[in-house]
């Protein structure tokens, strides 16, 4: 579903990604872990077609980036630490706007389904600027799944959330991921990543330093795996 070969990204003289190789299959939930500055967000921005690779090949659902970006974007749902929502529109109006941008069919019914999924149906006519950070993040996930994408990218979705909001987001994430979708999530929260993901990739200095499936890693070993990968 996602195939990346020898990806290099440079910003001027600074090289952020250095020949990164990455693959993710349908149904896989990959946690992309690493310290600040490792290149996680840059990698996700390239996957989401917001940034062009300097060198290398990126294919998602068989379509190449950046030449077939529109086809890729139709199959992608992206959630970042910013909600990408308009504060002066209601929850329903935000989803209606994005639904039109994605040409979603039966939009009224789909908006209802999505608001149910993220638990915001009772607040559908409330302005987003009055929502708590957790509610905004849940609506952001609703926006990202509105067009039923095959691939979901989450960039630090837990940033700024309290414990209750994080637990609620866990449930929404599980529900979103449990439909055969390919999910890639960057996070600094190892415990949460261990709870949700089926594979763990450690990104360090612009390359995948280590990778392991949940089955191979076992329970409670992620921190050691992470430290060893960064030390190596």
């Amino acid at each position, binding site marked *: 579903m996602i195939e990346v070969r020898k990806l290099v990204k440079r910003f001027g003289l600074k090289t952020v990604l250095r020949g990164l190789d990455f693959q993710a299959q349908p149904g896989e939930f990959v946690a992309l872990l690493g310290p600040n500055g490792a290149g996680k967000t840059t990698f996700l*921005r390239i996957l*989401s*077609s*917001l*940034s*062009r690779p300097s060198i290398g090949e990126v294919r998602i659902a068989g379509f190449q980036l950046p030449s077939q970006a*529109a*086809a890729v*974007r*139709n199959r*992608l749902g*992206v959630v*970042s630490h*910013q*909600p*990408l*929502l*308009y*504060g*002066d*529109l209601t929850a329903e*109006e935000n989803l209606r*706007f*994005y639904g*039109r*941008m*994605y*040409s979603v069919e039966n939009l009224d019914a789909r908006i209802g389904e999505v608001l149910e999924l993220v638990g915001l149906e009772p607040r559908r006519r409330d*302005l987003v600027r009055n929502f708590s950070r957790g509610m905004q993040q849940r609506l952001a996930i609703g*926006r990202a799944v509105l067009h039923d994408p095959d691939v979901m990218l989450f960039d630090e979705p837990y940033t700024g959330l309290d414990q209750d909001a994080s637990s609620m987001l866990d449930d929404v994430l599980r529900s979103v991921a449990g439909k055969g979708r390919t999910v890639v999530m960057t996070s600094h929260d190892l415990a949460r990543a261990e709870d949700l993901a089926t594979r763990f990739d450690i990104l360090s200095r612009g390359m995948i330093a280590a990778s392991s499936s949940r089955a191979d890693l076992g329970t409670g070993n992620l921190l050691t795996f992470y430290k060893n990968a960064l030390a190596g």
Partner: protein
Amino acid sequence: MATDEINATKTRQAGATNFLRAVGAVVWKDLSAELRSRELLSAMLVFALLVILIFNFALELDLQTRRSVTSGVLWVTFAFAGTLGLNRSMAVEKDRGCLDGLLLAPVDRSAIYFGKAISNLAFMMIVEAIVLPVYSLLYNINLFQPGLLLVILLGSLGYVAVGTLLASMAVQSRTRDVLLPILLFPVVVPILIAAVKASGGYLSGAEMSEIMPWLNLLIVYDVIFTAIAFMVFDYVVEE
């Protein structure tokens, strides 16, 4: 072969429909949000009214001189108020990461440009529709002449076509508030000169042969800059 052509035609029609739907969605979103917040329009309007009020007291002129300065005062007011609107319109997209949300949509990115440009033009026209009668009252000059209104439409169109593109560039910078006027005013000088000359021509009752070159310049400038924006917007907004 015939089936291929029919499929290709259907694909093109679907693409055009999606494009227009996306343009409409951006316009609907901008107008709905602005109707609720009124942040952008109120800032533009208050600024524009203050400018013409200040000019009214600063320039104590006789009727004839007032006629000669009217076109200049009007376009200075529209240009400065328009800059406020352009800055705010793109800042709203950037502040909550919404520009990324727009860029993630599977539509030709020029649809986003046209949507934003149409919204910006609508905001500018609303401000102009309020400023013109107030100016007419303060300066005792009838500004409701079809020719003058056409010039205001063409001038605003060109200003917004360039301004929306440059605001998309400036918004990526931390110094966007000061960067936009610095980028914008040198580029729109031909529009402002042509608009001031054509407006002045209509107000002074000049012959059409004197006004037409300026109108033609406005039309050519509008077409060229709309085409340039259509071609380069994708590159302007991508990293």
